[in-house]
């Protein structure tokens, strides 16, 4: 059952359209990450959902109740939407103590005092902040304020929590710890979490499903982290997910040639099943860790050859820059593996093997991926 349903939502500030015709359903109890580059409209989407801004077109409903619909002249006030929100800057009220911060939503929901206190302390225990109940926010670190904000959101709504870039301001270790805790809390309490971030790595570690948004506020891909990582829908999503290499290819009847500035090279087409609809210009996409370099042997015919331009030792891995027919690609190799197989020298020619490449149609943004 969908707890949040957005249908054809458009948001605009004046004439500036931030989100256009976006549709999205959030399942009850899931952790959905909305990921996209900064200023892509993620936060705008959150603010529209929470009722802080009006939508220009479309419809938003929460648990089957329409909360925003300009056509039906419905605009439920933020206080009546029952969404717990954790803001990017925490928004812990500096003039109230930690426990007063957490009791506030219960006070507004007219929960009786004894029960409110009990529930607030319980939430505080959930985020491991019981010892700080009577502190003022100015006496807490960023990570601790974050927890207070999370506890307040949990108390505010046991159904739906929206977190807006909640852990970007924390340092790396705290971020990891916090991400794990959010995941854990969500599993134990069963609350639905919408997690907004520009950091695709954290999103992958904590979410059940991910939504990838692009710069103009459109959804590019929706799916589980595995689906998205292994099958990025297009070149942009592929690039967004991590360091990527793209090699231009040309299909010439049965042969696939590398577009090359030096000597022509062909790529064996055995593992490609190219759809008929694709044009003749293609792109081969691969991650640095999924490329293997090996010494050339006499018998190698038809393998792709590259010149190792630069070798950098990074401790746990080696980083190579390899020139293939005038295109520079990045290759990474596990250090142990590299030592075992022999570290290539700068300037040497190697056979280049792509382990699980993706193939995209060039010049078309919505081209489907194939393997």
């Amino acid at each position: 059952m969908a707890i949040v349903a957005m249908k054809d939502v458009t948001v605009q500030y004046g004439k500036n359209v931030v989100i256009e015709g976006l549709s999205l359903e959030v399942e009850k109890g899931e952790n959905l990450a909305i990921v996209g580059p900064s200023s892509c409209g993620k936060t705008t989407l959150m603010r529209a959902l929470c009722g802080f801004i009006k939508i220009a077109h479309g419809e938003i409903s929460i648990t089957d109740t329409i909360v925003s619909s300009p056509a039906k002249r419905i605009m439920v006030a933020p206080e009546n939407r029952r969404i717990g929100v954790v803001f990017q800057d925490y928004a812990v009220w500096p003039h109230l103590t930690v426990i007063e911060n957490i009791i506030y939503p219960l006070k507004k929901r007219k929960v009786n005092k004894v029960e409110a206190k009990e529930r607030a302390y319980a939430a505080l225990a959930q985020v491991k902040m019981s010892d700080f109940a009577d502190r003022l926010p100015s006496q807490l670190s960023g990570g601790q304020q974050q927890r207070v904000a999370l506890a307040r959101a949990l108390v505010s709504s046991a159904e739906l929590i929206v977190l807006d870039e909640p852990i970007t301001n924390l340092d790396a270790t705290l971020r990891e710890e916090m991400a794990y805790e959010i995941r854990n809390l969500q599993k134990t309490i069963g609350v639905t979490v919408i997690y907004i971030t520009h950091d695709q790595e954290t999103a992958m570690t904590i979410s059940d499903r991910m939504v990838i948004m692009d710069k103009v506020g459109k959804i590019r891909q929706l799916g589980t982290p595995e689906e998205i990582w292994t099958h990025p829908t297009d070149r942009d999503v592929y690039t967004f997910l991590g360091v990527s290499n793209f090699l231009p290819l040309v299909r010439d009847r049965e042969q696939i040639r590398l577009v090359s500035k030096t000597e022509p090279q062909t790529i064996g087409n055995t593992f490609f099943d190219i759809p008929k609809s694709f044009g003749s210009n293609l792109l081969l996409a691969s991650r640095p860790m999924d490329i293997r370099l090996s010494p050339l042997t006499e018998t190698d015919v038809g393998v792709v050859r590259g010149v190792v331009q630069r070798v950098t030792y990074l401790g746990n891995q080696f980083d190579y820059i390899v020139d293939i027919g005038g295109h520079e690609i990045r290759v990474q190799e596990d250090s142990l593996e590299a030592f075992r197989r022999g570290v290539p020298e700068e300037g040497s020619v190697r056979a280049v093997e792509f382990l699980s490449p993706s193939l995209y149609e060039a010049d078309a943004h919505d081209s489907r991926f194939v393997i």
Partner: protein
Amino acid sequence: MKYFLTHMFQRKSSMGDRRFGLDQGLFILSLVILIVTVLFPILMIVIRTFFKGTQLDWRLFTQVVLAPENLSAIINTVRIAFMVTVFGTLLGLFYAWLIGRSDIPLKGVMKALFTIPYMFPPFFGAMAWSLMLAPRSGYVNKLFMQITGGTSPLLNINTIGGIVFVETCYYFPFVFLQVVSALERMDPTLEESARIAGAGQWYVIRKITLPLVLPAIAAGAMLILISSLSHFGVPAILGFSNNIFTLPTKIYQLINRSAGSFQGIREGASLSILLVVVVVAALYLQRLVLKTGHYDIIKGKSMRPMLIKLRGAKIPMLSISLVSLFVIVVVPLFMIFIVGFLKAYGLPLKLENLTMRNYQYILGQSKMVQDSIVNSLFLSVSSGIITMFLGVMIAYVVIKVKPKGKGFLEILSLLPYSIPGIVLAIGVILVWSGAFGVNLYNTIWIILIAYIARYVSFAMKSASASLEQVHYSLEEAARSCGATHLESLRDITLPLIRPGMVAGFFLIFLPAMRELTTSVLLYGPFTRTLGVAIYAINSEGNTVQASALATVAIGIIVAGNLALRFITKERKGL
């Protein structure tokens, strides 16, 4: 009233999106209040000057402007303001350089002394200097005549020179404070690299330091110019007896002489327009000057500047500045204080001539004085509270709601800043003495309205500063926790800006407590304010009682300032 109106707007919005209703309500309410208190008076001045009934009529204006006595008032005003600006700027620059760039000792003491002229109204200074340098009766002049045996006084304070001197004493801190803060924020390496390149000390001051602080000097000088142009107290006390008039005192005289007759008020309004034109011209000049000199080299960070060693000049410089500060700041206050205890004005300043009788009279017997203290306290407190809330509301609309007419609202709220107090008073008379069916003339409410219009700019600026610190997510967090818009304002925003609001209250309370310019045109038989009472007693010739009452006012102002300092300190500790 406020809540009733906002409630009404909530009801009106059918969609239940109360946020938009409340915000709209606040916007319209702010707009209406500002239009009524600020815009109406100004418009009424223009209308009454240029229209007779519904007929356009330029004659009154040209007739008033071209009257020889008014022409001489215009010339005096500009002359005085020009000289005060020149001398005040030079004096301010001198002290600013000494404190900001030289190794002169006792900087802390001097800086503290500079804040004193800020606290007290210039007309206290005029009274004090008149006690010393009035041509026949001033103590210093009498001493001089005793010594020389002649009949000609040493100096006559009742001249244009005297007015310029007293105003300069009170307005030079404008330039001083601006320049000192610019010097403190300036990157000292700019000067040091010039020295390293082989430039001499004097050359560096002329070619590097001075050009860099020029915008600060210009800003301070313009503040002096505008303040002096619209200043009433000093020329009123020092100039009337010698028939020296400036535009503000001429306006006062016109209204006062006509005893509230319509023709008199119309003539006053015409002169007011002239005064506004002069002030606006000055403001325009300021924009021109400031536009040409904008440097980003002055940073917000404070750095330790290279101090210039005064060496042999140290002791002479120190004595010059300490003595001059002492004369400018301490002596006048002391004179007022001591004369307040004299049995009669003119008696030698000896112990046996001192008495408490003046205080007994003004605080115990004079109904007028008691009324004035009560009135001023009531007016300062109520205008402080009302204006502060009004300022918060306007600042909230401008900063948080950002409606379409936000720029207009902002301009309206900052307009009184550049409108001379005496002009505002005339506008308030024109609006609130029956023209729109409400006659508040001679009541305390007309003064309250004028104070609100006069101080709304202060309140708005101070509230804006604290509201900008409150991030919008704090309010939205409350909304998503189930608070209505009104509740989020009450529970979150208002408590967060409360320290700023208290400080803002005092920033209105203190000047309102000593206000003279506006109230002197608006007071009725029972609605004198403290400033008006002191002024009136002084012009009746009861110098000792006026001094005693001024001492009481000084006491209240000092107490208020201490409270303000205490509160702002608390706030920093939070």
